[in-house]
């Protein structure tokens, strides 16, 4: 049988999935081992054990200065910011996306502007953003919004425009007003794709969260990484990166699950990643 028609069995599939992860960990352990053979005090690639210990300490030993469990404090603060930022970005993406995708006049007025706006790398105008939104939580949330919303808006409006014209016409012949079409046709058809846009948007959202926390903050995962970076404390940074990746992965899977639960009709066709 052709390779494209052969589905790996359950066991093979799990093994194949584990392979590159195992390879990465193995390669790291080796590189770390040899570096520490040369210089036992090497900080760049700490041993797995060392990282495990540090992670354990961050998670379960209260900080001497504040008495907090740093990992959980950082995680909570970061997730809160990420949630707010993604929430605002999602609302913007949905409302502006539908407007741009569905109403030609709104499209003329906003699409080029937002397309242009989405191309401005936010880090270049940080000083202006900080002046506009202050250095508190707002600016961090806004940086996430500015970093993710334009692309999300763009992709949602494209999805709205991709709704087969026949469906819109059908709704018109069934007597729907513009509002009704938005609520009963456009939104339901777009929502599963919005979830997809959110999943893609989470990648830059994390990046901007970490950048924002590195600039002005006193807690959060990005702050901690930034703080210990000046001592090259990779034994803190690497477990934090793994932790961030794990969190991001869980959020991603939750969104996929949400989409499958809430929009079963959307998943009747092929698989999705």
């Amino acid at each position: 049988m052709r390779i494209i028609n052969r589905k790996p069995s359950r066991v093979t599939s799990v093994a194949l999935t584990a392979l590159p992860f195992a390879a990465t960990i193995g390669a790291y352990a080796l590189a770390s081992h040899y570096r520490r053979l040369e210089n036992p005090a090497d900080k760049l690639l700490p041993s797995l054990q060392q990282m495990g210990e540090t992670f354990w300490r961050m998670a379960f030993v209260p900080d001497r200065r504040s008495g907090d469990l740093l990992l959980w404090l950082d995680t909570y603060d970061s997730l809160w910011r990420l949630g707010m930022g993604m929430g605002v970005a999602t609302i913007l993406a949905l409302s502006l996306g539908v407007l741009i995708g569905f109403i030609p006049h709104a499209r003329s007025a906003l699409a080029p502007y937002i397309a242009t706006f989405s191309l401005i790398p936010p880090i270049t105008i940080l000083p202006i953003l900080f002046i506009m939104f202050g250095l508190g939580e707002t600016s961090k949330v806004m940086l996430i919004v500015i970093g993710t919303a334009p692309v999300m808006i763009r992709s949602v409006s494209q999805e709205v425009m991709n709704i087969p014209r026949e469906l819109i016409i059908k709704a018109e012949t069934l007597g729907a007003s513009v509002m009704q079409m938005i609520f009963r046709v456009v939104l339901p058809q777009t929502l599963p794709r919005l979830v997809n846009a959110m999943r893609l948007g989470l990648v830059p959202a994390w990046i901007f969260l970490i950048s924002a926390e590195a600039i002005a903050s006193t807690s959060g995962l990005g702050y901690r990484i930034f703080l210990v970076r000046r001592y090259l404390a990779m034994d803190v940074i690497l477990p934090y990166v793994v932790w961030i990746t794990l969190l991001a992965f869980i959020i991603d899977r939750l969104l996929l699950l949400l989409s499958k639960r809430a929009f079963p009709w959307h998943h009747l066709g092929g698989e999705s990643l």
Partner: protein
Amino acid sequence: MSATPKISVRNVAKTYGHMTVLERVNLEVEEGAFCTIVGASGCGKSTFLRMLLSQETPSSGRIELDGAPLPGEPTPDRGIVFQKYSVFSHLTVEDNLILAREFERSRLLGRSFGKGRKAARAEINDTLEKIGLGAARLKYPAQLSGGMQQRLAIAQALLKRPKVLLLDEPFGALDPGIRADMHELLLGLWEELAMTVFMVTHDIREAFKLGTRILVFDKIRHDPQAPDAYGATITYDLPLNRKDAGPPPELAGLAVNADTSTGASA
């Protein structure tokens, strides 16, 4: 003609880029007529229906509805069943059918809840049985066979009870039994509501059985050097008498043609 015709088409032409699809189409259709449209595939029948729906605008000429220019956009008084059956993929069979009702009842969101929803769902029980989708009421379109989707699309358009109904090969994917049921359903509503119907079909017998008037689209001008230069127009426009035993003499050729294609066994 004394009364205003329901629909009048005056010297309409339609071109896509350099290609003329339709030209010099003239037509007056009185209210309550059942026009069946036949013609070679690719000659512009679907395009003609799309213009009647205001989905496309004629490149030249004019279409009038009740004596006034056709509205510039699709309106609820003209229903449509597309050639590629399009139903709402995010709604179950029953929700597809109650949608028009919901649009009427809930002006803002177009969505009913609780009791209203239940009542609307009860109202369509009959229809569901008639189109043979009673058992599939909770399925999504992607879970239906082609013919089932097509029946759903027809029922959805009929439930809105439009004044003008446009059907583009609506029964193509149906088996003879179901097709006969759908014919009955359609004819019943047509008589009851005095709808004006335009139906494209490739089945000449069906055209004769259902129509009160048959429109044949064909190209009459040809330029071998530039096959796209000329478009099709209405070459025959004949009234049909349902009680006739066969096609009128003018269409004998067509009917023979139809016979060849659908089997000489009859």
